C-alpha cells in the first residue's frame, strides 16, 4: 500500500454554509475532512482520490454536546470519540453510546476521529451505528436547499453508502430521550484481539412495563450485515413477554437469522445470539434492580 497521498486542493471552510457552497461548486470530486482517519486510510489505499478536501475540523458550530431539557442529547458531528466516551452527560444519559465510542479504534484514533465522520463513513463493522440505531438517533443534514432530518435507521443504504448527497454536510446527531424506566447497553466482541475491529455488536434498549413484561425493546446489530440493522423480528418476539431465559434465547436465535454477515458468518451469527441474550438478560436484571453489577457495556472475553 502507498504511504503518501496523491495531490489534492485543500480548502478551509469558514462556516457550514461555506462548506456546502464549496461542495456544491466543486462537485463529487470534493469531500469534507474532519478527523480524517478513515478518509486518509482510504486515500492511502487509493480507494478514494478526492481532488479537493474541504477542512471542516475548525468549525466550532459543529462541535457541541448539549443535553436537552427533555432528557435527550444534541451532538455536533465534530465531537471526537474520546470526547463522547469521556463526557459526563453522555455517560449519564446514554452510557451505551459512551461505551461504544470508547471502543472505536485505539486511544489515538479516538482523539482524532469524530462521531459524525464515523457515521458518515457507514462502514459495516463499526461500533456507534448499532447504538445510534437502537437509540433512534436522528441526523440533520444541510445542503444547498436547506436542512433535512434522517432517522439513523434510514441513514445507511449499504456498505460505505449513506443518503448524504455530495453537497450535504452532517450538522447534528440528535438523540431523543429514552422511555421512562428503560436501560440500554452495548455488547460487542472483537474479531481477534481486544483492540480490533468489531466482529459483532449489539446495542440494546429495554423498557419494562409495571408488571415486568417487555414494554419496548430495540436491538441494534452492527457488523453482521451490510449496514447496522434493527433486529425487528427478534424485537417483536420479546414484546409483551416476561423475558424468561427460554423466550430471550428464542429471540436471540431469531436475531441470529436476521443477520447477513459476509465473512466468518457462522461465528458472527453465533456471537449475535450470545450477545443479544446477554444484553437482554443483563438489562432486565438492571431495571428490576436485583443485580450486583451495573456495568452497561462489556465485551465477552
Amino acid at each position, binding site marked *: 500500500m502507498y*504511504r503518501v497521498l496523491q495531490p489534492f486542493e485543500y480548502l478551509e471552510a469558514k462556516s457550514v454554509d461555506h462548506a456546502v457552497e464549496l461542495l456544491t461548486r466543486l462537485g463529487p470530486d470534493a469531500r469534507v475532512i474532519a478527523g480524517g482517519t478513515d478518509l486518509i486510510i482510504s486515500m492511502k489505499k487509493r480507494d478514494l482520490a478526492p481532488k479537493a478536501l474541504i477542512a471542516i475540523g475548525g468549525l466550532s458550530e459543529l462541535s457541541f454536546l448539549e443535553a436537552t431539557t427533555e432528557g435527550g442529547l444534541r451532538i455536533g458531528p465534530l465531537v471526537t470519540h474520546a470526547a463522547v466516551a469521556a463526557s459526563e452527560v453522555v455517560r449519564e444519559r446514554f452510557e451505551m453510546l459512551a461505551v461504544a465510542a470508547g471502543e472505536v479504534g485505539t486511544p489515538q484514533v479516538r482523539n482524532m476521529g469524530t462521531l459524525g465522520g464515523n457515521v458518515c463513513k457507514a462502514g459495516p463493522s463499526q461500533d456507534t451505528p448499532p447504538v445510534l440505531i437502537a437509540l433512534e438517533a436522528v441526523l440533520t443534514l444541510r445542503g444547498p436547499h436547506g436542512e433535512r432530518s434522517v432517522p439513523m435507521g434510514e441513514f445507511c443504504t449499504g456498505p460505505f453508502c449513506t443518503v448524504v448527497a455530495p453537497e450535504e454536510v452532517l450538522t447534528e446527531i440528535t438523540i431523543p430521550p429514552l422511555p421512562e424506566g428503560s436501560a440500554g447497553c452495548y455488547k460487542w466482541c472483537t474479531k481477534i*484481539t481486544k483492540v480490533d475491529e468489531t466482529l459483532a455488536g449489539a446495542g440494546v434498549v429495554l423498557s419494562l412495563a409495571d408488571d415486568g413484561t417487555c414494554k419496548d425493546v430495540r436491538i441494534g446489530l452492527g457488523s453482521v450485515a451490510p449496514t447496522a440493522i434493527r433486529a425487528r423480528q427478534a424485537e417483536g418476539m420479546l414484546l409483551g413477554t416476561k423475558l424468561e431465559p427460554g423466550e430471550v434465547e428464542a429471540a436471540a436465535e431469531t436475531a441470529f437469522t436476521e443477520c447477513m454477515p459476509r465473512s466468518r458468518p457462522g461465528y458472527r451469527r*453465533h456471537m449475535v445470539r450470545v450477545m443479544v441474550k446477554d444484553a437482554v438478560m443483563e438489562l432486565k436484571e438492571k431495571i428490576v434492580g436485583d443485580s450486583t453489577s451495573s456495568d452497561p457495556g462489556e465485551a*465477552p472475553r
Partner: protein
Amino acid sequence: MNEEFSVVGKRIRQPDGPAKATGEAKFVGDLRMPGMLIAKVLRSPHAHARVAAIDTSRAEALPGVAAVLTPDDLEDWSGFDRGMKDMPLVAGGYRIPPEEQVVNRVARHYGDAVAAVAAVNEHIAEEALSLLEVEYEVLPFVLNAEEALRSGAPQVTEAAPGNIGKHLSYPYPEGDVDQALAEADLVVEGEFQTTKQDHCTQETAACLAYVDASGRLNVWSQCQLAHLARRELANIFNLPVHKVKIMTPFVGGSFGQRGALCAEPVAVALALKTNKPVKLVFSREDNFLGLESRTGFDNIHVRLGFKKDGTLTAIKTNMLGHLGGYMGCGPMASVIGMTLSMGHYRCPNRYGDADMVMTNIPVSGAMRGFGNDAMMFCIEQLVDEAAEKLGLDPIDIRLKNTKQPGETASMGLMLESSYLEDCMRAGAERFGWQELRSQPKETEGRIRRGCGMATMSHCTGAAPLYLEHSNAMVKFNEDGSVNLTVYPAPVGTHIWGALSQICAEELGIGVEDVSIVTGDTDITLFEYGSDASRSTYAIGGATLRAARKAKEQLLAHAAEMLEVPPDQLETRDRRVFSKADPNKSIDVGEVCYDAIYSFGGEATNFAGKQSFEPTWNSPTFGAYFAEVEVDTETGRVCVTRFVTAIDCGKAINPMAVEGQLEGGLQQGLGYALTENFLVNETTGKVETTNYDSYKVPGTLDMPHSEVIIVDKPDPKGPFGAKGVGEPGMVGIPPAIANAIYDAIGVRIHSLPMTPERILAALAEKDD
C-alpha cells in the same frame, strides 16, 4: 562458580538507551544522503503469473524518476543463495538464478516483486509505480502442500519438480522407532497444523545503498548476519569482498527475519544502475508480502511411545511444510525443529523426516524458535495426553524423561548443564501448580478455568550444524578505558550491554569504561552474526577470550611497573594489584598510558584479538505455566496468568533476560491464539497484509506474567551464560494448549487456536 561478580549479573542500563529514548537513534529509514533516491517495489496482484511484458516508458518519462528496474537489468548477476549460510550440514537454500528472486519474470506468489523504481522522492516513486504497465499471463496456482504434491498440480518453479523443494531427515536418528512403537505399552499420536507467523518487526525492511567514487558499494543494512550479507552481495553483484561495506545502524527488531537479505538486493541494484544513493523502505504490506515469515506446517504427524511407568521409548515424526514461492530458510525449519524437539527428552528410538513443498504463497523462513515451536506444540500435547492415560502428573512424566548432564544433547554434543528440573519445580511453586491441579474440575458454568504446562530446550548457537565463527577485539585506551570491537546484530536484545559486562568483568574495570565499536564490516573481523540465540554465548565467548589476551599484556607491563610477577597480579575496580599485598597497586589507566607514551622503542597498545568458534552447544531449558479462562459460549480464550522458569545459565543481565522472556510471551501468545496469516483460497491473494487484519497482542491481551531465572551457570558459556533469545516463545503455545484441555477437555491441534476451532471441538465432543 559461586564467586561474586562485579558487573556480571547486574541490571545495568543499556548504552543505547538514551539515544532510543530521545529519538536520536537512527534506523535505516532515518538516514539521508545528498542526492538520495527513494525506491519502491511493484508487486504482483496474482498468486502465479508470468510477466509477459512490462512497459516502463510512462514511468521513466515521469519527471523525477531516475530508473526502473526490471529482470532485464539482472542478466549479469550471479546466483543468489537466500539461505546465505553456505553450510554443508544444513539443508539451506539452493542457488537461485538471479532473475528468479529480486524482481521476477514469473511472480510466484501474491505480492512477489516484478519491478522497482527509484525517484527523487517518495511521492514520485509511488506515482511511477502506478505508471508501470505490466502484462500478466495468469497461471494456475496452488496454496497448500498437500495439493502441491498431487500429480498435475501447478508447478511453482522448474527448479523443484513435483513442487518438492526438499526432502529432509532428522539428522540424529537412533534405534528402531517402528519396533519401539510396536512394543510400547502406550502409543499416543496426533496430526497437527501450525501457522505461518509474521515477525511484525515494528521497523519494516529498509536499505540505503550507494557506490562511492572509488567504486565501493556501501550498504546500510539491517541484516543480522552482516558479514554474510557482505559476501552474498559481493557474490550477486560480482564484486570482490573488500569492495563491499556493510554498515548497521539501529534495527527495529528482527526475530530471525533479517537473517536473509531483505531490501538490500533491490536497493543495491538501483544504486548500481543510477550511480546514486538509493533508499528502499518497505511499507507494512511490502513486509508481509516480500519477506520470509515463519515456516508453517500443513501437517505434523507425531507418534510417541511410552512404557507404563512413563518412560519415553520412541518418537516418530513426519512433517509436511510449505516453503512458499521460493526456497529461503524454510527447509531448515524442519531440520532444526526436529533436532531440538526430538532430542529434548531422553529417548532411545528416534526417527523423523520432512517434505518441504513449494507453494504459491509468500516465502517461508526463520522466526524465533525456527521449528522447535511447531514441534513442541505437538510433542508437549502428546506428552500430556500420555500422562493422563498413564495416571501421571504432567510434571512427573517430564521429570522421568529429562536428560541429565553427561548425556547426549539434542545436537549430538554432550549436555554440559541442565537445570530443567529446577525450572519445573520453581515454576510449579510460583504458579501454584499443585493447588490448582488439586482443585475440583468445573464441569458446568460458562467460563471454565484450566492450567497447563510445557517444557522445552533450545540451542545456544547451533554448533555443529552452523558456522559458529565469531571474533572480538579489545583494545585499551590511554586512560584504561576500553574499546570492544564486535558485530552482533543491534536489534534490541541488549547485547551491547551484555558484552560490555563480560569484557568489564574480565578486565576488572567498570561497564562504563567500555565503548562498543560495531556496525561496520570494514572495522570488524569476521562475525557470523546474531541468530540461533548465540550472541551472548559465542560473541561473548570471543569477547571474554579477547579481553583475557589484552589483560595478559596489561599485567605483563604492570608487572614491570610494580615489580611483581604477572601471575601474582589481578585487576579489580580499575586497579591492578598484587594478590599477596593488595596495597601494592596501580591504576589501570596509568599502566596503559605508560605503555603508549613510551619513548624507548618499546611503545605498545594493549589489545587482544580472538577468533572463537564454540564446538559445543549448551542448550537452554524452560518450563512454562499457563492459566486460562475459556468462555464456552464464545470460544474465547483468555490467558490470565503465565509463569516462565528459565535455565539460561548465568544471567549476565537479569533485566535483559526478563525482557527476552516477557517479549517472547507476546509473540508466543500471538502464535498460539491471535496471529493468522490468511490467503484467499479462491484468488490466492494474501488477505492479512497489515495490522488491521493481522493481529498481534497489545497491552490488553497480555496476561499477568512472571519470570523466574534459575541462574545457575553453565560450564562452557562466558561466566556461565547460555542463550535466551528464542526460548522465550517456544514453550508458550503448548502450555496454553494444555491449559485449554484442562479447562474444557478438548485438544486443539491447529494454530492459531481460534474461537471457531474451540467451539467446533466442543461441539464434536458433545456429539
